[in-house]
């Protein structure tokens, strides 16, 4: 049975079964006028009948006309915050006389189940896997969380105003790396989830769910909605040759134009599901007996980020914006064999001045300095 159906009333059993299997269930819920991912124990806490209206620099939560459970796009925060926490204690040092001892904190990692992962976000998790698990070194904190993760995708039938996953080949339908994938279909007389199984542990959970065999019509209805979704992307980005474009246009005057708008606030890096930069914070207690090192998220938009004795390497906002965009779409490919962008559109929505990554690339493509050289 590759295609099965979970009826809407049975969605609660997905939570129950995962919890019985020892998972802490994390899912979308409404908080502070946005949809965020939190510890959700019951399906009733999901954003039922809610949607989000997203534009450049704008996000508004609205009521839907129907009772869709996953009828929205993505909120400001991604799943990154669970696998790669914004603050993490790396170790603690205790003084004894002139010496001191250093020890890692004992972390009992909970088994997490993510319910409602968008296909673009699953791609983002796979990209961070490459960064933290498949580079020269392995990040032990990430690895212990990731190994135990269970993922339930919800494919996208209604892309948002800043979405461009089709350009990045990450959606609207998840292709791999997941455990279970759902496609929600809401019709007048029907409300169901088409279920696809992506892994052995996905199969194990699926076997315990009250699934029914999907009718041909139910499968084709879901397919139809996903195909339609692919045509309704709010944005598009032409990725052909984008790495070379960025490498060859490092001195393009256009960066100055972006810098006139960019506030270097770092919002784009905080909401990005793949941005992985961090810094270290050392703290000591008042007695001087205990010191701690914390790893916290950092951003290439700050001055401190590139500081070496004497000053920062990237002083100007144009150099910092260029670093971010060139890394995200260009040098990321050299480093990890993949683009660093999944087309989720968060950086566009949450930019306070609405700078649009797809527009900036388009402009660079139009004013490519290689063109003017050959003329």
């Amino acid at each position, binding site marked *: 049975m590759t295609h099965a159906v979970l009826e809407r009333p049975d969605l609660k059993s997905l939570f129950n079964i995962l919890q019985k299997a020892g998972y802490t269930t994390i899912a979308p819920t409404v908080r502070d006028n946005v949809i965020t991912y939190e510890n959700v124990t019951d399906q009733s806490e999901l954003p039922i009948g809610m949607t989000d209206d997203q534009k450049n620099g704008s996000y508004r939560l609205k009521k839907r006309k129907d009772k869709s459970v996953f009828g929205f796009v993505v909120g400001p925060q991604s799943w990154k915050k669970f696998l790669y926490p914004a603050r993490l204690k790396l*170790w603690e040092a205790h*003084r004894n006389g002139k010496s*001191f001892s250093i020890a890692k904190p004992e972390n009992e990692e909970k088994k997490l189940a993510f319910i409602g992962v968008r296909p673009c976000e699953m791609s983002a998790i796979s990209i961070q896997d490459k960064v933290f698990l498949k580079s*020269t070194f392995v*990040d032990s904190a990430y690895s212990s969380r990731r190994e135990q993760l269970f993922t339930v995708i919800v494919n996208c039938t209604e892309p948002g105003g800043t979405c461009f996953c089709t350009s990045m080949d990450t959606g609207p339908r998840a292709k791999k790396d997941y455990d279970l994938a759902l496609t929600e279909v809401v019709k007048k007389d029907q409300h169901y989830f088409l279920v696809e199984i992506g892994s052995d542990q996905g199969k194990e959970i699926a076997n315990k769910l009250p699934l029914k065999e999907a009718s041909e019509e139910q499968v084709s209805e879901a397919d139809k909605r996903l195909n339609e979704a692919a045509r309704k992307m709010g944005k598009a980005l032409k990725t052909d040759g984008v790495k070379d474009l960025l490498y060859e246009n490092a001195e393009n005057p256009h960066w100055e134009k972006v810098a006139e708008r960019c506030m270097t606030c770092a919002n784009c890096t905080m909401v990005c599901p793949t941005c992985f930069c961090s810094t270290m914070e050392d703290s000591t207690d008042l007695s001087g007996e205990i010191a701690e090192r914390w*790893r916290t998220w950092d951003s290439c938009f700050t001055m401190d980020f590139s500081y070496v004795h004497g000053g920062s390497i990237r002083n*100007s906002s144009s150099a910092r914006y260029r670093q971010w965009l060139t890394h995200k779409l260009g040098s990321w490919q050299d480093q990890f064999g993949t683009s660093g962008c999944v087309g989720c559109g968060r950086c566009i929505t949450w930019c306070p001045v609405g700078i649009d990554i797809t527009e900036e690339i388009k402009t660079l493509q139009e004013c490519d300095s290689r063109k003017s050289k050959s003329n």
Partner: protein
Amino acid sequence: MNTDPMVPDLFRVQKVRKETLDTFTLELSPKQKKFRFEPGQFNMLYVSGAGEIPISISGNPNQPESLIHTTRAVGSVTNAMRKLKAGDYLGVRGPFGTKWPVDKAMGDDVVIITGGIGLAPLRPAVYDILAKRGRYGNVVLLYGARTPEDILYPKEIMGWRSRFDMDVHVTVDRAAGSWHSNVGVVTKLIPKAPFDPQNTTAFICGPEVMIRFTTQELKKRGLSDDKIYVSMERNMKCAIGFCGHCQLGPYFVCKDGPVFRYDEIKRLLEIREV
């Protein structure tokens, strides 16, 4: 070595030696008797309560019983480090990064060009080359300092100068009348340095502006870009390619560097604020 590369090991301070007005050398003894490293690599040094910074190793790779770092007191961590005394402890993570191509350079003349504190990360390469002296052609050290008082390791430089199998040329930016040697930038020493440009490997460590002018001069002598190696400096927090701070174009200086073949990074050095 700790199993987690983010958790430091404790090393006991054996000695803190003042070098010049603003530089000093830390001699550390490893717990596990030996600390093996390659010339050009660096460690992350942690001073309790002050913080952690990358410092290149400047000791002898063939004498792993003690771990030596020379650094300049410029920030809060290095200033706290300067105040350490024998018997104190500090945290060490490493060694990290790429090495000077001491093996690849065998059979070639080797020209080492550096200035100020830049001699510290190159000293392990000098030790290693001199230990296998017969396998290299001419060995040349061109070294620049601000003033005669700022010359790092002066006694050792004197010792190298007195060898018949090594050419050492020192220059200073400015000096009083008692200085009877070269005055001017280090690049001025390149045109007359005794090496065969067709069979030479160059090692450079210094600020980026110095690297730019040095590579230009070497090019004038006929050295090709793939025979020039440079050590780069960037902000580093983790040293294992995760924190992102040390990025130089597609490279993480902590693990793809700090020693790069010049032709690999030439494009990047031409870009402003990269």
